[in-house]
Structures are given as structure tokens and as C-alpha cells.
């Protein structure tokens, strides 16, 4: 049956009104959600947990081809540089052998001194290795999603490392996946020690490649090349974890180059040092099954 022209136009007006209504109400919902998120309710966090748990398997499959390509490119690059690398390795091997004998001597000395001082050893950390399946946020947030969650013992607030340095900490732990807030995220603040003198400062991310040092008492206290490690203040991180080195000191701004390059690692280690820092859950977390 064909509708008369008047009816069609009325139908069209109704449809456009409905559309406008849908648009306005959805815009209202987005603002409401932003306010709810700002209040940081448990509800939003649970929703994030559920969604990341559900989507992580999909992201895992999607991240596979890029990982294969990256491995292939890395292999080619390594093959090209194999001779130089070999020479470098021989040299560093000779150097390390000298260090090894020094370390052995120090270890035995340390052991006897510990025995004398009756030192109570710190509890050992437990590690969980997980794959990185998503690199989220772009210019607006810096976090990664990993394939281990509460079911494997990952808890909010735990420390995440890759290779030789600190990656960040667990910000949200679902059942089978977790989100790691990177040290470069704008919301990341880490108490650190700078250089051999151990000057205290706060390492603050700004969503860029290099986080900055804030509240460094004396700006001249930092020079390019100075090592930056966690200080262990506030109990969010254990002391002495390597983060990076000072890359640039300019007009009172101190940039830090992290040891861990975000585009290089495919796996991370989640470490449980038994700390209950500021990010830990309000309710006491269960001890992970070992």
C-alpha cells in the first residue's frame, strides 16, 4: 500500500523528531557517565572489569599477526647486526666475568655479615608472566591490557616489570585480564630516588614518551645519565626497582628516559611484593594461590 504524500512527510517529521530525541538523550547519558566516572564508583570499575574480560580473547587473536610481524622484523634486524653484536658480547662477557668474581666475593662477605647482624630477610616476591594484548588510549591515556587476572593471582596495585625495568602497576584486575597503568600515563605518580646521591622526587607521566621529575628539591641535583629508581615511599613500590635514566635537564624540567621501551615488549611480569600501597583494594586481597 502506498502512503499519501502528507502521511509520508508526517512520518518523516516524526522520525527526525525521534532521532533528535535519541541524540539528545544519549548526549545526556554521556555527560552523566562522565560525572559517575569522576565519582569513581565501584560500578564503573566492575563494568570495566567485565568488558575487558570479555574482549581480551578477541584482542588476543587480533594482536597475534602484529606480534608475528614484529618478531620477523626483529629477527632480520638481529641477523644483520650479528657480527657486531658478537664482538660486543665477547667484550662484555670478559667484563662481566671480572664482575662475577667481585660479586661472589661480596656475596660471601654479605652472608657472613648477615649472620653476624641476625638480619630478618625480606619476603621474596612472586611473579606471574602475562602477554600484552592491547595498547590502549593513544594520546589520552597510557595503559596496556594483559592476559592474566585475579584467577592467576593478579591484584590491583601490583608492580609490573618487563626485562630490565618498571612498566607500571596494575590499575584494574578482572578475572582473566588486567589493565596496567604505564609510568608514562598522566595519572601515574611514583616516588623515586635520583642519581647516586639518592635525591627524592616524584616521577610524573604526561602521556608522552618521557615522564618528568617533579618536586626534585635541587634541580642541579640531576644530570643526564643519572639512574632513577623507585624509593619505596608510600609502600606502592618496593625500593630500588630500576625505572630509567635522566635524559635531559632544561629550564628546570627534568625528563626521564625509561629503560623499558613500550613498543618492544610482548610479555610482562606481574610481581607481588606483598605491599598494600595506595592503589590496593579497600577490602583485604586474598593471598594468591602459589
Amino acid at each position, binding site marked *: 500500500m502506498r502512503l499519501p504524500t502528507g502521511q509520508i512527510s508526517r512520518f518523516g517529521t516524526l522520525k527526525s523528531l525521534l532521532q533528535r530525541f535519541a541524540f539528545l538523550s544519549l548526549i545526556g547519558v554521556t555527560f552523566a557517565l562522565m560525572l559517575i566516572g569522576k565519582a569513581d564508583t565501584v560500578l564503573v570499575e566492575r563494568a570495566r572489569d567485565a568488558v575487558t574480560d570479555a574482549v581480551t580473547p578477541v*584482542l588476543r587473536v587480533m*594482536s597475534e599477526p602484529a606480534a608475528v610481524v614484529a618478531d620477523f*622484523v626483529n629477527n632480520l634486524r638481529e641477523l644483520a647486526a650479528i657480527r657486531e653484536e658478537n664482538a660486543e658480547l665477547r667484550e662484555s662477557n670478559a667484563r662481566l666475568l671480572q664482575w662475577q668474581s667481585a660479586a661472589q666475593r661480596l656475596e660471601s662477605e654479605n652472608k657472613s655479615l648477615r649472620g653476624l647482624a641476625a638480619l630478618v630477610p625480606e619476603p621474596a616476591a612472586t611473579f606471574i608472566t602475562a602477554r600484552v594484548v592491547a595498547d590502549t588510549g593513544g594520546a589520552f591515556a597510557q*595503559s596496556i591490557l594483559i592476559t592474566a587476572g585475579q584467577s592467576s593471582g593478579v591484584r590491583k596495585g601490583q608492580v609490573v616489570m618487563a626485562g630490565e625495568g618498571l612498566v607500571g602497576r596494575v590499575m584494574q584486575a578482572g578475572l582473566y585480564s588486567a589493565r596496567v597503568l604505564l609510568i608514562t600515563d598522566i595519572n601515574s605518580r611514583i616516588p623515586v630516588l635520583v642519581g647516586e646521591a639518592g635525591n627524592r622526587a616524584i616521577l610524573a607521566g604526561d*602521556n608522552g614518551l618521557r615522564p618528568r621529575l617533579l618536586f626534585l628539591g635541587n634541580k642541579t641535583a640531576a644530570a643526564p645519565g643519572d639512574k632513577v629508581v623507585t624509593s619505596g615511599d608510600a609502600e606502592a613500590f618496593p625500593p630500588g626497582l630500576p625505572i630509567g635514566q635522566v635524559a635531559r635537564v632544561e629550564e628546570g624540567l627534568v625528563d626521564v628516559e625509561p629503560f623499558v621501551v613500550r613498543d618492544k615488549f610482548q610479555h610482562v611480569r606481574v610481581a607481588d611484593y606483598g605491599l598494600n600501597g595506595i592503589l590496593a583494594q579497600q577490602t583485604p586481597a586474598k593471598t594468591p594461590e602459589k
Partner: protein
Amino acid sequence: MQATVIQRMDITARRLVPFGVTLVLMLFAMTPTYVPGLSHVAPMYALMAVYFWSIYRPDLLGYGSTFAIGILEDLLAGTPLGSGALILLLCQRVVFHQQKFFNNKPFGIIWLAFALVAAGAALLRWLCVGLVATSGFTPIGQMSTAYLMTVAAYPIVGWLLAKAHMKLLSQ
């Protein structure tokens, strides 16, 4: 003539193409690329897809679907909940509102218009994230680079979307 069940399923599947493709692009934006520095300035793929479908198939991607994709992106990316959905919805609204302008325009004009829409979207997202986050605003340089990456990637993504459009929705 009554359509068979298979034909009807085929039609439904085709109608879901814009939503599905936008969803996949949004997820694709999150997969690690292992390209140095790229993750900090990743292009806004979902915005490109919403813009494209709003011009060429406004009937198949409604406000509800766009909202759902935006919320999902926010939940996964850890950005303030609602900020991603807001810019996608506004982008769609602008395109719907200017439907006559977009009719039969050459690619150059569409691209230029996208650059304008994306500039507004990036600025608004930057404002939302900065206002909601506790630690202030992302440096504007970072955001501008992400914006330029988005504009630069549009021809490639737009071409792929056009291929999908012609192949799956031409009937």
C-alpha cells in the same frame, strides 16, 4: 515474493556491516603495533569509521550503535567513561545535519571536511579527558600529533571502508 530464511539472514548480516566494521576498527586501534612511538599518537580509527558510514550509509549506523561503540572504547581504553562516545555522537550529528553538503562531493572535499570534524573531536576529547582526569591536561603537542595522524590515515582507512561498502552493501 517471500524472502527465504537464508536471504533474510544475508540481508541482516549485510545491514550489520557498518556496525561490525566500526567495532573491528576500534579494536584494531588498540592492538599493539610494535612500531616505535606510534602507540602514543595512535590515530582515532573509530572516528573515521563513524564519519564514513554517517555520510554513505546513515540508515545503517544509528546513534545507538555509535554510542555503544564509544562506551565500549572508553571502557577498554581506560579513558573517562562517556568521553569517546560523546565525540563520536557529535561527529555523527554534524554529518547528519550537513547531509546535503556531503552529497556527491569529491574525495578531497570529504577529506577536508573530515580534517575539520576531527579537529573539533580531538579538541573536545582533550578537554573532556583533561577536565575529568585528576592530573590535568595532556600536552597539546601530543594531542595535535594524534590528530595529524588521524587526518593522514583517513585516505587509507576511507579507501578500505569504501571497498567494504561496495563489496557488501552495493545490492
